[in-house]
């Protein structure tokens, strides 16, 4: 009998103990400012399939925190010891599923020196437009031109799952870069394994291939590239890259090309297709990308200035286009200029066509072809129907914003920005509404919001995909070890 009583009391005691450990918001003092939190998730638009927006208070005196989400007549409360508000995945998914298409008001509280502070609330607009569920990026220290430990990681944006697609510690610490997706669901992909015995790993949904995208007429190895919508072709630039150092504080590194041309790879026939129009020795051509329908190639082009690197600030890249005949596998015969850098100023880099064919998203910096360390580098949108160009001021920051990638529905894009600490690139997402207006960007949510503070890696060239890749680091290591790269002619 007595034992039975104890059994009944135990859960009650556990509950009491638990509630005693969880702080409770009492007599909160209203403050008319937004909370100092990292990441800055105040007043943002988020896709309904995003992972929990965990955040932390940055004031070191905070020792307990609380959050109340309100939407219509529903609310959700979370209170924690410490500085971090980590929302359980299940609770978050319930909330976003219930309230998608609506605005959630976020009320936050923090306890500082025993007093609870109630901050000005902010909003999360949970839109029904989903973002592609996966993003890949290269994890690399911002060590300028040298690497040691590199990984290409795929992260699920809907939760916190991740897998390593390639790890150079398994492959003689060789360089790996530019993991790019293609196809209507991002099911195709390629990336480079550099160095002797390396090649391009090509994934077109069947067997993975290791290919050498080079023939005798080409001046160098392929660097920047993109898939044709059919998956049959890839377009690439060949760049001889030179790093140079600025002496002024904060500018750090400038990377410029001493030579760059374009080429197309025919993956079915192992053939490289060149054109004198895009391999002009008087010009640098780089950052090629296909249009959504695959009938055009957009790229950046600049007159060559001498001598380099002294006159690197005279390199101004314009946005150009040239047609492409998919049936014949031929370049067009005329180059058109979409954004003339000599007339309009700046230097255009990294164009990416939206999957709906309406826009071209590109980076504009003062000069050159390496916007990563250019604080002024901002994202711009070219309306392909009207030719209008506008600065995405709502999305941009006073640090480098570049290396963007579209979600398949053209409503979202991801990009790398150094706005967090000026040094380490992080993945940001921004919403583009039906009118073509972009909105405030927010950083990739992490299970522990402190991760970005303690992580010494940059997230390099983030690329969105609706599909998880069918390989991992062990598969890639095996392919690298066992296969010779297929030759292209």
């Amino acid at each position, binding site marked *: 009998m007595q034992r039975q009583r104890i059994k009944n009391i135990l859960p009650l005691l556990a509950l009491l103990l638990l509630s005693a450990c969880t702080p409770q918001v009492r007599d909160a003092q209203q403050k008319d400012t937004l909370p100092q939190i990292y990441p800055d998730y105040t007043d943002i638009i988020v896709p309904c399939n995003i992972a929990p927006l965990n955040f932390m208070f940055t004031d070191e005196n905070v020792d307990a925190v609380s959050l109340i989400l309100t939407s219509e007549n529903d609310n959700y409360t979370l209170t924690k010891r410490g500085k971090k508000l980590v929302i359980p995945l299940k609770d978050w998914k319930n909330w976003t599923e219930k309230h998608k298409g609506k605005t959630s008001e976020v009320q936050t509280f923090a306890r500082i020196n025993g007093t609870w502070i109630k901050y000005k609330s902010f909003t999360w607009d949970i839109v029904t437009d989903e973002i592609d569920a996966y993003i890949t990026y290269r994890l690399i*220290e911002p060590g300028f031109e040298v690497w040691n430990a590199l990984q290409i990681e795929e992260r699920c944006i809907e939760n916190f799952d991740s897998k390593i697609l390639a790890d150079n510690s398994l492959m003689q610490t060789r360089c790996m870069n530019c993991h790019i997706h293609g196809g209507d669901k991002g099911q195709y992909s390629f990336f480079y394994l550099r160095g002797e015995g390396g090649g391009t790993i090509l994934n077109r949904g069947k067997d993975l291939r290791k290919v050498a995208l080079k023939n005798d007429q080409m001046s160098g190895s392929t660097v920047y590239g993109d898939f044709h919508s059919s998956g049959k072709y890839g377009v690439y630039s060949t760049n001889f890259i030179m790093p140079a150092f600025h002496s002024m504080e904060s500018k*750090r590194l400038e990377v410029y090309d001493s030579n760059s041309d374009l080429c197309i790879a025919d993956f079915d026939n192992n053939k490289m297709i060149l054109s004198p129009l895009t391999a002009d020795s008087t010009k640098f051509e780089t950052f090629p990308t296909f249009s959504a329908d695959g009938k055009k190639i957009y790229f950046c082009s600049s007159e060559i200035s001498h001598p380099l690197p002294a006159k690197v600030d005279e390199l101004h890249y314009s946005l150009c286009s040239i047609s492409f005949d998919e049936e014949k596998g031929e370049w067009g015969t005329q180059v058109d200029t979409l954004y003339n850098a000599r007339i309009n100023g700046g230097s255009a880099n990294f164009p990416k066509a939206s999957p709906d064919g309406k826009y071209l998203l590109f980076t504009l910096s003062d000069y050159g072809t390496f916007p990563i360390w250019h604080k002024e580098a901002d994202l711009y949108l070219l309306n392909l129907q009207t030719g209008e160009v506008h600065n995405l001021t709502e999305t941009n920051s006073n640090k480098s914003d570049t290396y963007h990638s579209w979600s398949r529905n053209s409503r979202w894009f991801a990009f790398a920005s150094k706005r967090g600490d000026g*040094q380490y690139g992080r993945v940001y997402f921004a919403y583009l509404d039906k009118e073509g207006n972009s909105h405030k960007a927010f950083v990739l949510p992490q299970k522990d919001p402190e991760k970005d503070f303690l992580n010494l890696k940059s997230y390099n060239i983030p690329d969105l995909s609706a599909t998880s890749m069918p390989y991992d680091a062990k598969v890639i290591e095996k392919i690298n070890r066992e296969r010779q790269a297929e030759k292209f002619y």
Partner: protein
Amino acid sequence: MKKLAGNIPFILAILISLACFCFFFFYYPYHLFYKEQISLFLLSDQTFFLYFPKAGWLSQLTGDFLTQYFYYIGAGPAILTALLLLLGVLCYKCVEKLLQRFRWKKAVAFIIAALVSGLEFWLQCSSTYPLSSTISVLGVFLVVYIVLNFRKLNIWTTLSGVLLLGIGIWMFCPFSTFQGEKEGVNLRLEKFFALDTETNFGHWQKVEMLSEEDLGNYVNSYYHNLSLAMQGKLADGLLDYYQAGEKSLLLPVAQTETHFSIFAANEVWFQMGDMTMAEHAAILGMIFSPNHSSFRAIKRLAEINLIQGEEKAAAKYLHMLSKSSCYKTWAREHTPGKQTEKVKQFIDQKKSLLAKTDTLRLAGQNRMSLVNLLKSNPNNQLARDYLLCLDLLNKNLNLFAADYMEFANGIFKPIYAQALLIIQSVHPELLQGCKMPMQEKTLKDFQEYMNLYTQNQGRSSAVKNKFSRTYWYYYHYAKTEN
């Protein structure tokens, strides 16, 4: 008497431990400090999540946790001695238990324990052999000791033993934690670590003294030159010592170099005020270090970003250091808004050295970097000394003439005067407008040197005795890579 004999192993263990402590404390302290410098252990949830998935997590966690305390004088030798003693005791107990019916069990157990501890002692003398490896071995003996102490052998104790061994491997996994160099005692490296450590603390006289022994090594020369330069006497002592050309002054940051020398290269740029080059070397040194992260590099990166006015980047590094046991005070004192007067002065002094105009240079274009620093701040004595000495060591007298007249015209230093006399005798037109400060003795010596050189048809032995420390001798006979 019998009691004393029974205590012999105990007494010997204490004596050996004492010797071990003294060895690391008096004779070999810099290796342990260096291990702390290339580690990074932060007290945060993130840290624990990083350790847990790994096999051998407990030994790695404990090892890295304890290594951070190597920062304090005496803590490294004390921790290591305690662990080696514990390892010896556990090993002794295990062997004694296994040989319980053997007559000489205590002696055999003692010898085996001493060998195991001795081996770990030897390995711990290596530059990058981690403490976690010793803890792994210790963990294995702990598990074995527990299993050996099961009183009865039945199905339950057998299962418990197997389970315990499994848990032991998961927590201590010795096979995965045997990492790092295993070269044993290396006094040459100990000296480099000493130079690095004393440089870190700005003990320039000690660096000068430590690097005086001529190792014929450019890293040693680099520290020697830096210590002289920081005391304002680089040009005075440059040729009293082994020089390997440009890299004795400015260490190359290249893949052919070690992570130690790559990181060390940051120091001179930091002192001169070229924060881009300092950051470049510091980051690359960190990337190539065994753990790809280090307290020392994070601290330096915080300083660099504070000087550059990049407060957000500095805040990231300071936040990391605030999560450590030994650097949280340093981090607080350097946090903008909470900086002490001393820190503010240090940052302001370094800020005054920053370049004011932008120049683009390729890696290794050191001269361009120095000229740019001097054009922004002609009073940057360190940059001036390095520029002129760089020209001299590269035997580029045309550039020396131009740089001397632009940045040091009228300043007398014996080797500058010696170089000017060579230029005057060969290309006097390069010295138009040069103030040519000269001492009577220098002129006489030059005359004597030239006479001897000519009379002996350029044989080095004729001039070596008296003039081996002059620029004339260096110019004629030193081999340079450039």
